[in-house]
């Protein structure tokens, strides 16, 4: 109350200078945020609309080739058996890789969470593949799993793991489970360290074995972390691109479309066959699918996480 009267009673000169100060602050605010906002507008918001626009045209390397608009690109993508293969491949990949990297990541986190000598060494060793470049990792894995490579030699096998359609998908699952499990480990580690000691002390007094303690106490207490990882790494898996591109030496999906995943399909439509309209439509369709899955996850898993 006192301040209001003071302001009202204040001479108009002061009020004007306060308005001036506010204006100046706003000016600097816009100025500071200008370049970032321009970058986001130009390279995120505008491309979003542009992609939608392109998707309704016949659009090739020379630009629009017909004046008519329509949903023909969408029809073409939705009826393309190769796109169906790409969707099936990414579904199989995600369903396989997410539980695998979560199980691996949780196991590693349990190791790191113990009082053991060389803890920092183990943590660094387990986490390092997560931050190494995908190109180097894929190159190294292709070397070790080549037909006359180290893996086949150790196990006395003769398989071309990344060269044949029946095994290449599993190869990519294994490779990415290996590299991503370090990141999963970091998330689980944070949750494990948040579990109070007295919970375990109670279990220890009851003489509960460590295996039982884990399944009856630790695992259920990690429920929020399970859901968090499911969402984050599930959505992350749908972005698969680098590894199959490098394995197949391009976005062709070789061998037999076994390495064809949605983003490679989009890349191939754009830069393999230069059908930009088709690529844009495929991009929009896949965006809608991923966005829909995100919403569904938020509504189901997200609610559980909060509970």
């Amino acid at each position, binding site marked *: 109350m006192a301040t209001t009267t003071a302001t009202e009673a204040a001479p108009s000169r002061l009020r004007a200078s306060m308005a001036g100060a506010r204006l100046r602050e706003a000016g*600097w*605010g816009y100025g*500071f*945020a200008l*370049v*970032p*906002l321009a*970058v*986001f507008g130009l*390279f*995120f*918001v505008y*491309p*979003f609309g*542009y*992609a939608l626009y*392109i998707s309704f045209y016949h659009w090739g390397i020379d630009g629009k080739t017909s004046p008519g608009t329509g949903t023909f690109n969408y029809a073409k993508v939705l009826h393309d058996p190769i796109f169906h293969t790409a969707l099936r491949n990414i579904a199989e990949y995600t369903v396989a890789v997410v539980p695998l990297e979560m199980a691996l990541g949780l196991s*590693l986190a349990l190791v790191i969470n*113990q*009082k*053991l000598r060389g803890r920092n*060494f183990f943590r*660094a*060793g*387990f986490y*390092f593949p*997560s931050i*190494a*470049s*995908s*190109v180097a990792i894929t*190159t*190294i*894995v292709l*070397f*070790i799993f080549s037909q*006359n490579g180290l893996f086949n030699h150790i196990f006395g096998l003769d398989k071309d793991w990344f060269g044949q359609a029946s095994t290449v998908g599993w190869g990519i699952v294994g490779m990415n489970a*290996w590299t991503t499990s370090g990141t999963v480990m*970091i998330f689980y580690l944070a949750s494990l360290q948040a579990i109070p000691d007295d919970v*375990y*002390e109670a279990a*220890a007094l009851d003489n509960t074995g*460590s295996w039982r*303690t*884990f399944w009856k106490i630790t695992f259920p207490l990690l429920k929020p972390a399970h859901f968090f990882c499911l969402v*984050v790494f599930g959505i992350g*898996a749908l*972005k*698969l*691109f*680098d590894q199959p591109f490098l394995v197949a030496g391009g976005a062709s999906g070789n061998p037999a479309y076994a390495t064809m995943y949605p*983003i490679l399909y*989009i*890349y191939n439509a*754009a*830069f393999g066959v230069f059908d930009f309209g088709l*690529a844009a439509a495929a991009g*929009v369709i*896949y*965006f809608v699918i991923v966005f829909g899955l995100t919403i569904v996850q938020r509504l189901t898993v997200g609610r559980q996480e909060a509970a």
Partner: protein
Amino acid sequence: MTSQTSAAERYIPGRARSETARKVLLYGVYLAVAAIFLTPFVWTLATSFKTLPDSLNFNLIPHPWTTAAWTDLWTNPSYHFPTYIKNSLFLAAVIVTCNLFLSALGGYAFARLRFPGRELLFLLVLGTLMVPDQLRLLPIFLMMVHWGLYGSFTSYILINLVSAVNLFFMRQYFLTIPRDFEEAAKLDGAGYFKIFWRVMLPLALPAMAALAILQFQGTWNDFFWPLILFGQGNQDHYTLQLGLAQLHSQFQQQWPSVSAGSIIAILPVLLIFLAFQRYFVSGAVSAGVKG
């Protein structure tokens, strides 16, 4: 689980010996797992010091030992490796600098300065996280072609000047800094830029260190956007990751050279990781996940 049951074990006599045995067994398992995780890197490092015929053998120790693959990468003109390394370092340096400055400046504006529409604009910044790369790739490619920037470093730098993740990260950090520091500077008559530059930036140094490290890793490892913007045969502009992919597909059986190239592609990030481990670990949570 040692740490979990140790409370009980302390009270039960006679358990000490079986406990030791268990520990040894556990260490064995851990070392085996760590070995599996690191064998690919060790094997690659060993191969890079082998001769070409020896690279098909399965001895870990090179016989004979040679640095030929390494010198070859530097001197063989068909490999272009020094150019790739220079390109990657240049792009990483420029992009890290731009991101540091612009995300701090923008983060400060969104954290502290009041301007109409601020909350709405901030939602827009966060909204960019929803726009996936596969939707942007074609429009950005066409825009760069249209502007005559396709295949230039400028195109790659422009789209990476600042990221929403970094701006958000800096804003959150600025929000944790007490206002007292700015108020004191304001009373001294300092302008907004001076407050930002002289007061806020020095206080935000830990956050900026983390940002620089993670952004360096992201740019150094990036494969997708360099592939889109200068992957179509313009070898002068190849980054190290593009160059390594090229080396691998073109000289597939030259395992010693390919191995040396892989080690170079990993090495800078490995060194930074070993020096600043805690930044990576804390950054994993905010920076999200590799695809």
